[in-house]
């Protein structure tokens, strides 16, 4: 964690997050994200091996409800908001780059 966040790191993270950055954006985000990560060095430097993590403020176990059939969202209303629909399903372009 001693090495600073690099342009390559940001490039890789953008790919993972499905974002495309211009060269200028890559420069800007690298500077800004490195500054934020540097600020977090105080946390990263702490020795907290004996402290358990808290992922959630409430001590919730599994939350269950009776298995009873109830109406769900109206299908046509949901599909009316989709960018593309065919045969009452969401339509997307080719997956994995095969011919449509």
């Amino acid at each position: 964690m001693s090495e600073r966040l690099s342009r390559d790191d940001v490039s890789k993270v953008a790919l993972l997050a499905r974002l495309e950055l211009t060269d200028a954006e890559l420069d800007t985000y690298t500077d800004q994200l490195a500054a934020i990560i540097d600020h977090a060095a105080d946390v990263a430097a702490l020795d907290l091996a004996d402290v358990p993590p808290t992922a959630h403020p409430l001590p919730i176990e599994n939350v269950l409800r009776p298995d009873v059939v109830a109406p769900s969202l109206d299908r046509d209303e949901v599909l009316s908001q989709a960018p593309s629909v065919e045969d009452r399903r969401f339509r997307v372009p080719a997956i994995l780059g095969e011919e449509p």
Partner: protein
Amino acid sequence: MSNSVLPTTAVEISRAVRAGELSARDVLEVHLSAIDAREGEINAFNLVLADEARAAADAVDRVVAGGGDPGLLAGVPLAVKDNLCTRGIPTTCSSRILEGWRPPYDATVVSRVAAAGAISVGKTNLDEFAMGSSTENSAFGPTRNPRDTSRVPGGSSGGSAAAVAAGFAPISLGSDTGGSIRQPAALCGVVGVKPTYGLVSRYGLIAFASSLDQVGPFSTTVADSALLLEAIAGHDPLDSTSIPDAETGAARSLLSVLDDGVAGLRVGLVTELMGEGIAPDVAARVRQAAEALAAAGAEVGEVSIPALSYGLSAYYLIAPAEASSNLARYDGVRYGMRVDADTTAAMNTATRTAGFGPEVKRRIMLGTYALSAGYYDAYYGKALRVRTLICRDFAAAYQNFDVLLTPTSPTTAFRFGEKTADPLSMYLNDICTIPTNLAGHPAMSLPFGAGADGMPVGVQLMAPALGEATMFRAAAVLEAAAPDLSEALQ
């Protein structure tokens, strides 16, 4: 309309409407006129719902005429943050990626305020996906602070805060992930409350950071926030993190405790949030608030909460990590914007690249980095352990104190563009508000006089989980003692 002066608070309006002394329609028209007069300048709303509001107000008046009771919020105009789903009504999160989307369901809080007789006047502007502290990150232009339009209203619920401060509605709904209700309330000179995590349903609140997000009220008075919180609080089977009603009774009975006073209440002034980084005029007002509580019979002391100094770093790892996961759903498939491409993967990328603004992209990438292989333990994992430290240090403080007092924001409202070039300087705005989100505790901001620049100063009260009633008792005392907002600190 009668010749008497129209009441301005939700408590007075609902009482008069329920008693048949005032029509909901008359109340609404006054507020729609206020919107007409100043909305062009303020930009509090992404959408004003004048026709729908008139129909809802008339329906409330018919219920009263028929001898019925429309509910706790009868005829009270209310503004709704545009990250709360409203069925059939555009809900944008102030993002291009959701522009034009009409949700197929209502958020639970939206159903509850409607069932209580409130009149929704519109959807309010926010920092895109609630990420920001100034409302400058909205894709639809910034909201301006009604008290000085050269300054920001704070954020992310800047539109909801400005709508109340400008008199567009006596109450509004916002959401608070790291201070997004309290900080704009402070900067606009109104009351804003972040309830205990789980007290108010998150169903239909578009997710930013799910372990931190909470819906809460804005108002001009402490009593109006108590009223609105009573109306929206309570268990919701549609939100698996909502707390069962049997455990939240006291936290939902707020109006009845407002006159209880603070005699014997132990109030802790948090030393970590009174020194470096806090403007001297803001700190002076907080000390003045502490004196007011002491004068009313509270036992005021200082308390150190050491782990708070790590709060900002922990938050800006945890919240973006959760956001990067939550915002993965905007992929151009089921709703919102799509930018077409030959393959689905290319379509996903093109859509997200065009649809998200710079701050949202920054946080998604920050979160993706904090969660990525090789960095997870050092950043996200460490932040979760710091979260435990913060919870422990709060628990220790609450052994000796009933409520804690701090500034809400380190400064009064700043000017447009002042902090946009440096994200970290913007994030530092949240230093006082973030810790309670990490702990899941309730906190609220209320105006306590003005700073040296004449802009409102907000003081923050914090309480342990489900300690809302104690917090509101202290707030009522501070409200009564607060210096006039028109007098700058000398």
